[in-house]
């Protein structure tokens, strides 16, 4: 269980995390989603005490991270793939971190096997690819077999096989009753892994709900209709007030609030020819984009929206 209350972090005049409250519960994979610069990594650094909150608190099983008796056994953390000395081998890195908690070599060998690093474990980390660095970071997080796992962008740089492996690992560990907190800026990835999603934008929580709910929100009942008689059909469809019709081209309308079958029947009784009748199911990606539309700090194209405010 991770609980944050009023968690705030300011760097100078810039507010990275703006008084957020959330709880990450055990037995679930909780996805932490947001555009670049939304404050995901800062939040994760605050959780494990690498940064000091400007205000608010965050606890792990009721305790501050620094007060944990045995941090590695309670919390495993992957903050970024580069938290390793490049001059040391993966094996020696794991051995050194394990030694602080008197974790034996057997467990070190175990996490190396678990993350598929056997063939490169004796090589210096400086030569590792992003994906291998990521595996080493996950291996480090798993050393103490912790009940809480915090992974910042764990699939970053992994090959498809590695992505599936992380997904299975996260699901498996959650099923064992552990608390799994993953960040990502890829909604599609989260849709397949997470049970619960917390969406962060510009340091604030935009949504905190089960994946199914967020998906339902996005999956409206929009139907795309293409017909040469668009204007007449639009009028016919407008009868119930909850139905909205938007015309996007002379022969194209989008209908909300009616099923495609109903639209088809109305068109048939009025003898209107239809060229297309397509139910548009919103994706999680759409939901995410809709949610974060106003919260993206760095838009492509080089305009800095925040600077104007």
């Amino acid at each position, binding site marked *: 269980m991770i609980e944050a209350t009023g968690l705030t972090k300011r760097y100078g005049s810039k507010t990275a995390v703006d008084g957020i409250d959330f709880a990450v519960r055990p037995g679930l994979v909780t996805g932490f989603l947001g555009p670049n610069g939304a404050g995901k990594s800062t939040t994760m*650094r605050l959780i*494990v*005490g*690498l*940064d*000091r909150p400007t205000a608010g608190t965050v606890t792990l099983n009721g305790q501050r991270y*620094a007060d*944990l*008796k*045995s*941090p*590695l*056994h309670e919390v495993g*953390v992957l903050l*970024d793939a*580069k*938290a*390793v*000395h490049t*001059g*040391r*081998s993966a094996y*020696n*890195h794991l051995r*050194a*971190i394990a*030694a*602080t*908690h*008197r*974790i*034996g070599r057997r*467990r070190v060998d175990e996490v190396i*096997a*678990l*993350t*598929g*690093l*056997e*063939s*490169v474990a004796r090589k210096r980390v400086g*030569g590792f*690819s992003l994906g*291998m660095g990521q*595996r080493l970071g996950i291996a*480090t997080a798993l050393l*103490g*077999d912790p*009940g809480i796992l915090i992974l910042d962008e764990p699939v970053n740089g992994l*090959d498809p*096989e*590695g992505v*599936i*492996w992380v997904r*299975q*690992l996260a699901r*498996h560990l959650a099923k*064992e*009753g*552990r608390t799994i907190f993953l960040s990502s800026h890829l909604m599609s990835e989260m849709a397949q892994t997470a049970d619960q999603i917390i969406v962060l934008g510009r340091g604030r929580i935009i949504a905190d709900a089960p994946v199914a709910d967020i998906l339902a929100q996005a999956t409206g009942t929009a139907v795309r209709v293409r017909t040469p008689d668009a204007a007449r059909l639009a009028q016919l469809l407008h009868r119930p007030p909850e139905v909205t019709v938007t015309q996007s081209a002379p022969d194209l309308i989008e209908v909300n609030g009616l099923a495609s079958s109903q639209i088809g029947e109305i068109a048939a009784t009025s003898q209107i020819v239809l060229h297309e009748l397509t139910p548009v199911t919103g994706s999680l990606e759409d939901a995410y984009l809709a949610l974060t539309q106003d919260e993206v700090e760095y838009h492509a194209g080089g305009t800095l929206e925040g600077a104007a405010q």
Partner: protein
Amino acid sequence: MTIPAAPTPTRIASAHQSGRPKVRVVGLSFGGILVSELIKLWTLRSTVWCCAIVLALAFGIGLLAAGFAGSQPGTIPGAAQQSQAVTVATIGVIFGQLVLSVLGVLVISGEYGTGMIRSTLAAVPKRIPALLGKAIVLAVTSLALGLVTIYGTALLQLPFLSNAGIHTNFADPKLNLALLGGVAYLALIALMSFGIGAIIRNSAGGIATALGLLLVLPTVLQIFAAVTRATWVQNVAEFLPTNAGGHLFTYASTASTSVAGVISLNATEGGLVLVAWAAVAIVVAALLLRRRDA
């Protein structure tokens, strides 16, 4: 490089049996932190290189100096013989301190440069034990290296020095005090540099600052003192780490004098001044480590 196939879920399952940690939990301990820091120090090539260079420089320059002394046979009075023996045995300290200073900075700045510090502090979230663990491991390593370096040099020099009429007497407590003083000097310089590295958190900046303090500042003050003939400049220079600490490995340096207002520290005073330098650097580093974001 290629990566082997990712483990199947069954392998994951075997390693994580439901809820119960398979690992025997001992927890975080200071002993564990010391072992961790020892592993970290000795699994980097820079450590091995630094130690090899210290030894090679000390032995090489020591033998050169002894050989030079041996080529000028003569008779020297007893106390002066011991004093000479100390001087040639510790001649490599001047160069060794620079290498140990670099090592001291790198021990901590290397972690900041690579991001390793985040792994370190995630494992030791109270932070100060990690800093102390590093300092202790560095001190013990420097002391051991210093002992081998200085006594090794002294032993290698024996045949050359006896040619010059210098008979090193290892039973002389004052000789051992001076040689051990050299060992302590090296460790204290390493610790002070470690503190500087922890404050600056950047390898290039840390090394520049530490070497500036050891090499540049004494020279600048010396020139300044020679030009102005101001006693206060000379007195300030006397309290620099190199000058104050230098008394640690001077034979029978007992008298602290103040001739015409110019202070000259003795071995104990000089040693304490150097201890203060190292202590202040590490205490400031500790205070900053507690406050700063990592």
